[in-house]
């Protein structure tokens, strides 16, 4: 193995059950996002652009889609002479095998992988966040501060701060306190779940953590608090860009709309920081004589002859005449027949919607808390069906 200064461990093992039916057949990082990507593409592309070319992807829950999507990372320029993406799923040794109990335990089980690269620093990232970030700057900051661990933080709105892990800082970015979901937050700097550790210190803490029977083996809940208690040099790196954890159906819909609206500078059209992915071959999109498309993101392999407004349409979708799609996300290979109305909804892969159906509220409710209707993958909706958020498994 060639020696690497810093390698990344990408956590992609979770089910993400709050995304409901979107994770029925695949792990959360594999959920389609942004018109032609999967959520994990953002983290992998960040690695590629940051010069982190060796990535271990920790998988456990229904990893098949992820495995075939990622491969060796060729499509992210991460496969080379001395670099590649390696899928690290649970394995058996002489004494049997262990399922990953938590994020920290997953990394613990693969310490030998990290050792093989003799890397001094380990970057821990997650496969279910949407952001464009240069980890190289984070590493530079970590080295400048001579930190033992550095946690990337981002400002969140004060009224939402109590939903996050909040960092309270001392001078020069030193972390003094970490509060998980505080009722009365003292700061609005939330942990992004992006960490750099000095490798030796990380290994020590992971070994200790596995022996601690009370631990749930989680970076945020166990490792970081323990390091703080021990008075380790922990620093917060302030990230200024767009960052979202798309953990729920609502936040998935909101983040999708943010991509569409290029909110806060998140931009898949950035020529220097493009998002890489793996696609199957698709013909060009065909926009029919009766089509009307405005304010939308439309992938290849799409046939549109209806009306699409402020929506995201994935490959292989057909939208027929007089159908009206608004504020919605149409996942791959959906067929929307004529005279269908879809409003503020997410339509799952391969679903077929019979003509005249109405999905979501008929009226465009402009309430602050969005009410999103979710239709599962692989459904057949009879013509003239009606399906709104109330039936949609109580979102």
């Amino acid at each position, binding site marked *: 193995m060639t020696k690497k200064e810093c390698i990344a461990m990408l956590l992609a093992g979770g089910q993400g059950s709050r995304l409901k039916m979107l994770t029925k057949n695949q792990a959360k990082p594999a959920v389609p996002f*942004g*018109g*032609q990507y999967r959520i994990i593409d953002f983290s992998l592309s960040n690695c590629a652009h940051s010069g982190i070319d060796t990535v271990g992807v920790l998988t456990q829950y229904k990893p098949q889609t992820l495995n075939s999507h990622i491969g060796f990372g060729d*499509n992210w320029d991460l496969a080379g002479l001395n670099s590649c993406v390696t899928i690290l799923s649970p394995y058996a040794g002489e004494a049997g095998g262990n399922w990953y109990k938590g994020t920290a335990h997953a990394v613990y089980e693969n310490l030998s992988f990290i050792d093989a690269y003799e890397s001094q620093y380990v970057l821990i990232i997650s496969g279910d966040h949407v952001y464009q970030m240069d980890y190289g700057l984070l590493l530079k900051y970590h080295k400048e501060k001579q930190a033992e661990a550095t946690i990337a933080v981002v400002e969140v709105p004060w009224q939402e701060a109590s939903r996050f892990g909040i960092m309270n800082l001392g001078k020069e970015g030193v972390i003094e306190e970490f509060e998980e979901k505080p009722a009365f937050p003292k700061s609005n700097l939330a942990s992004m779940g992006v960490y750099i550790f000095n490798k030796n210190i990380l290994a020590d803490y992971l070994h200790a953590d596995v022996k601690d029977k009370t631990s749930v083996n989680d970076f945020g809940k166990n490792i970081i608090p323990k390091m703080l208690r021990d008075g380790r040099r922990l620093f917060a790196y302030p990230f200024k860009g767009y960052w979202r954890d798309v953990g729920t159906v609502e936040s998935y819909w909101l983040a999708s709309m943010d991509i569409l609206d290029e909110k806060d500078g998140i931009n*898949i*059209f950035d020529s220097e920081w*493009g*998002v*890489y*992915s793996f*696609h*199957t*071959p698709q*013909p*060009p*999109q*065909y*926009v*029919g*004589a*009766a*089509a*009307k*498309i*405005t*304010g*939308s*993101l*439309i*992938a*290849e392999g799409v*046939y549109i002859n209806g009306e*699409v407004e402020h929506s*995201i*349409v994935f490959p292989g979708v057909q939208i027929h005449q007089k159908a009206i799609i608004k504020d919605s996300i149409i996942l791959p290979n959906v067929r929307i027949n004529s005279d269908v109305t879809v409003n503020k909804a997410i339509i799952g892969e391969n679903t077929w919607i019979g003509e005249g159906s109405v999905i979501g509220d008929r009226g465009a409710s402009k309430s602050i808390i969005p009410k999103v209707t979710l239709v599962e993958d692989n459904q057949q909706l009879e013509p003239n069906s009606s399906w709104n958020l109330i039936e949609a498994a109580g979102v």
Partner: protein
Amino acid sequence: MMLDVMGIIHHIKYENCLQSLTECRSMGAVPFGAKYRLIDFVLSNMVNADIKNVGIITALNLRSLLDHLGNGREWGLDKKRDGMFILPAASHSLRRKSIVDLEDFYVNIDYLKRSKQKYVLIAGSNVIYKLDYNKVLFFHEENNSDITLIYKKDQSWNVGQEPQVFLKIDDNQRIVGINTKCKVKKTDNVSLDTYLIKKELLLEILAECYLQKKWDLVKHVLAKKLKELKICGYHHQGFSTVINSLNSYYNYQMELLLPEKGKDLFISHGAIYTKFNDSPPTKYYPGSEVNSSLVANGCVIAGKVNNSVISRNVKVEREASVHKCVIMPDCVIGKGAYLEGVVLDKNVNIPAGTVLKGSQHVPLVLGKGWESWEERAVEVHE
């Protein structure tokens, strides 16, 4: 399973027929259909028929073609046994206007001999159709044919257009006449420049050509051996053409804007493979109006587009209008510009407010890159 057939994509010798579009690229590398290059169609037909061994004859200006093909991975041809082979042409001269130049085959005779397949399927890099070659092989064997040509019935032929090969075919699908002169007849059997032949027979023909130093497959072999050999015609009914003039290049793309024709070429009978690209989905801004068009990924459209073919990463700015155009990758149509009947080569930047119009059947072609545009600006402004 066409494991017993190898493919040869031949290099046409009248590349200059596409004028500036082939000035700095091979015919096979000319963009077509919003996201493809001409060669993608024949190559995809071959791999969709499970042909695993494809030789591609190349001449000068092959950089963009080689860039495009890479090691054949996107077509599943990056293999240890068989795979994709880039073959040299016998000569780089464009003067000889052979329809299929067998001298190119002769200089690659070692490759032909080494290949293990029984049949050779020969096709030009500029042939556009979607066709299951298994059916052609079945036809070939059913008819005990020595050589099978694929043809279409063409009703749109006009005198004075590009050169074509016309076939006279009897009721048993045997070809009884070959004509390479233009004719007045409205409906005719037009060769689609695709030939299926046993390798052994091809090698015999090559030996004969070598002795006679006459190398044109159509004129010197087929046309002269109609009695000696059983040469049959396989009628292909789908959308199909040979791109050999600016006219055909433009008009066949306009035809593809009819949904059923586009579907026949792009979707039926297997995928068309092309070089992998990372462009994002196409963005339609509020106020955009797009109709009856093929659009590739990575475009940003704020203006009006209709009856046009829009390649990757094209920007159509506000109040710009694109009508009956073929726009190649990376072009920018500035605010308020009006384009009608125009073919824009890659990377052309149209300044705001420009008005450009081609005539009804002859598109206006603007060359590659900003500099070319600058040079030509005076000529093309109205």
